[in-house]
């Protein structure tokens, strides 16, 4: 077991290195670089004056070097403009757009991202598990059809539209300000009960909008798996022992029906960061998603690279955790493929 874990950790490291290369190449795929984009933009606005300054930066940051060399410098295996100072040396690089170290830029965003998305994940599970259980045990009842229908509204409405409508009506009815994480009047204030309340009321829309998109999916799939397990003989055994229905359901069929979802932890972790990017942009949430999209569009390569690598790290870890969790949950799956 421990050897298995060690081996997995090692392969994880190799995969990550491979992924980092891939990420860098993909970022550099579009023609040009941050500076050319910058110059284009300046030009489009007639700000010819700053163009020369921008050109100067290109050389300073080694953007004139070959892609692989830039990659090497980013990772820290080749000397960059100030010697070996790459990711391996604990240096995340600098964001061109913000003119600050990447860590400073995304630091606060990561925390918020995690808060928002954890809430989303909790929301999804809180809503969908009871509904899934209800609609599996009350198959074809009016109630089950109704909740299905509600779930699908979330699925069939483009998230932006849903967000906009929610924002509009929440503002009209409850006076909650539009977008953002809290009312602008709290922006520069210290944390207080009011600010917290404002935060919570502003989280409703993003959590609902991001969450609803996945809730229906979770409900349907969980329900389907549950229905399968409910007809298994061991469920009858549990009943025969006199377990209360709730416990019998949760302990046996539900646990097995959760398997595919546990396997999906690998997906859950990275979606914490990237899943909500578009909704975050739309709702102007200061989470990491908008930074990513912006960085990609302007080819702010180290910022984009760092965020993407972070997502990749979460993916790989998530899949690892999923593997372990699955093995814990389902002893039929033996680790290490030991045959």
């Amino acid at each position, binding site marked *: 077991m421990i050897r298995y874990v060690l081996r997995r950790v090692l392969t994880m490291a190799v995969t990550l290195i491979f992924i980092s290369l891939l990420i860098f190449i993909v970022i550099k795929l579009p023609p040009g670089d941050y500076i050319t984009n910058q110059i284009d933009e300046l030009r489009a606005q007639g700000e*010819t004056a700053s163009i*020369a*300054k921008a050109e100067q930066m290109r050389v300073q940051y080694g953007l004139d070097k070959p892609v692989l060399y830039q990659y090497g410098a980013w990772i820290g295996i080749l000397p960059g403009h100030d010697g070996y100072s790459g990711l391996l040396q604990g240096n995340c690089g600098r964001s061109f757009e913000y003119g600050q170290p990447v860590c400073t830029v995304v630091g606060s965003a990561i925390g918020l991202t995690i808060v928002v998305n954890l809430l989303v994940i909790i929301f999804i599970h809180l809503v969908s598990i009871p509904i899934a259980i209800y609609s599996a045990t009350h198959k074809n009842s009016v109630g089950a059809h109704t909740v299905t229908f509600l779930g699908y509204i979330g699925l069939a409405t483009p998230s932006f539209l849903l967000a906009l409508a929610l924002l509009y009506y929440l503002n009209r009815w409850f006076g909650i300000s*539009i*977008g953002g994480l809290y009312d602008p009047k709290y922006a520069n204030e210290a944390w207080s009960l009011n600010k917290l309340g404002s935060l919570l009321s502003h989280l409703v829309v993003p959590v609902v909008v991001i969450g609803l998109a996945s809730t229906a999916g979770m409900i349907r799939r969980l329900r389907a798996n549950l229905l399968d397990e409910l007809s298994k003989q061991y469920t009858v055994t549990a009943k025969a022992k006199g377990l209360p229905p709730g416990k019998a359901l949760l302990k046996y069929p539900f646990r097995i029906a959760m398997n595919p979802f546990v396997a999906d932890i690998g997906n859950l972790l990275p979606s914490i960061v990237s899943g909500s990017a578009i909704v975050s942009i739309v709702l102007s949430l200061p989470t990491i998603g908008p930074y990513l999209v*912006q960085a990609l569009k302007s080819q702010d390569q180290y910022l984009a690279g760092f965020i993407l690598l972070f997502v990749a790290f979460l993916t790989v870890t998530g899949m690892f955790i999923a593997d372990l969790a699955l093995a814990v949950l389902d002893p039929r799956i033996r680790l290490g493929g030991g045959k």
Partner: protein
Amino acid sequence: VESTLLGPLVAAGKLPPQADRLPKQPLVADMLVRKRTIGQYGGDMRTLVAKPKDLRYLTVMGYTRLVGYDETLNLKPDILVDVVNEGDRSFTFVLREGHRWSDGAPFTTDDFRFYWEEVALDAELTPAGPPAFMVVDGEPPKVEILDATHVRYSWSHPNPRFLPSLAGPRPEWIYTPVHYMKQFHKKYGDMAKLTGMAKSLEMNSWAALYNQLDDPYGASNPDMPTLDPWWIRTKAPSQQFIFERNPYFHRVDPQGQQLPYIDRIVANVAATGLFAAKANAGEVDLLYRGLNTGDIPMLKGGEAWHKYHTLAWQIARGSAFALYPNLTCNDPVWRALNRDVRFRRALSLSIDRHVLNNTLYFRRGIEGNNTMMPESALHSEEDRKAWATFDPKLASQLLDEAGLDKREGSGTRLLPDGRLAELIVEVSSEASDIIDALEITSEFWADVGIKMVIKAEDSGALNKRAYAGQTVMVASQGLDNAYATAVMPPTELAPLKQEKMAWPKWGQYAETAGKAGEKVDMPEAQQLLDLYSQWMNATTLDERTNAWRDLLRIHADQQFVIGTVQGALQPIVVTKTIQNIPKKAIFSWEPTANLGAYRVDEFYYEQKTAQADTAP
């Protein structure tokens, strides 16, 4: 009277009283002449920015320049008390005595000297040399510091671009707060400290650090003093940026009260997509960015719930929707066609501008070419109408003459080389109104046998393709400045800029002084260049006016840019309590610097409490 914000500071002795803060000779705003009312101090003006970078639009709005345009486009001294112009060859600037930077340090000619000698001429800080508007035929100005309040710039040839450039929406800063910036300059600062600082910010040279900190336009450095009415107090990253009034601002109202009236500008960061929604919800006090003509009904609708007005100003644009045949495109067949004036005229004649106007611009636009607005002194009705009527018969005939006389089964014409006349029109995917207009136009063109393929793409990609000569035609907006006067350089009308989609390669050639791009090889275009230099070398206003008129006439006749409807409207959402904002005006980037020329520092809140949330 002290303002609400500064009063306590003065009382506490932290700030000298108003009288001591003003220059000896402050700029007295002619508010009464302009029928404005005397205001009262106070209030936060809430507005929105999409990202920290957009704070520069607030600098634009503050519109404090050495010289600046007023509402009627007269160029007048602003920071300067006077400019002595000798034949556009020599400009003597007179500073206001006792004028101070926002941190209280005196503003003197030393600030000009420092910029010129230590920044513009420093190869590390400005590798490309002094800015283009200061260079005439390769000749930099002679800069003489006459005394603490007098500085002179002179050239051997006239430089008519000099003052208009200084009055531009994005001004050219030819002065720098030397007392603050000096410490970051290698000549004056501690080099070791500078490199250390640069390193900690992951920059690799003092020059990069200097350039980053010297950002009066982007308002990214709260430590750097300014002369603007408000100065930034928040450092990025943040979700809210606050500008506070400059205690040393040089303008006063007719009663002698120091401007601005409004204490603070609060700019919240929000996604562009939510701007309209937030305006509709009454969450802003002043907003125009991110609002389009199409939003007007919705914004009007919101007035019922929230206390704001939706003003609709005319946009000073040559045409709300214009088509740019690329005269320098790579495809030889299309290039030949695009250069055929019959083809361009035919395309123009086949557009039913009336339908566009009805459908897209509330029937309030002015149909015709991409030319000056009627409000402009340079406007001519002929230029507007030339080749801009709806005459599909004539268009068809012209196309036949241009060699597109063969047609395929469905009626689409064939190019001379046998290809289908499939005209790919590229457009930025953000410009949804232009895409709508294109859709309608494609029907008109289909009627005369030209099949339009609309390709919407990211504007960055679009620019790249255009510069590389890959676009055949681009749809975009018309002239940026259709509210020009003859003193303004007619740069847009001549092939001088690569971002003008009619001639990217010619523009490149001009911008790089022949290192890239292509030389102008079309007589009609050469004529434009000639007229431009005529303007540059003109000595009288009449000569300039003539050059302008000729340029406009040639444009109308040649249809280099196919204009359609002028007079799109810029919605401006403004809280009901804000006073002194004109109900009707012309909105433009250049020359009015958006709202800048309308002097936002004179806006005020009717009551002090009025800026509180306006929800019912």
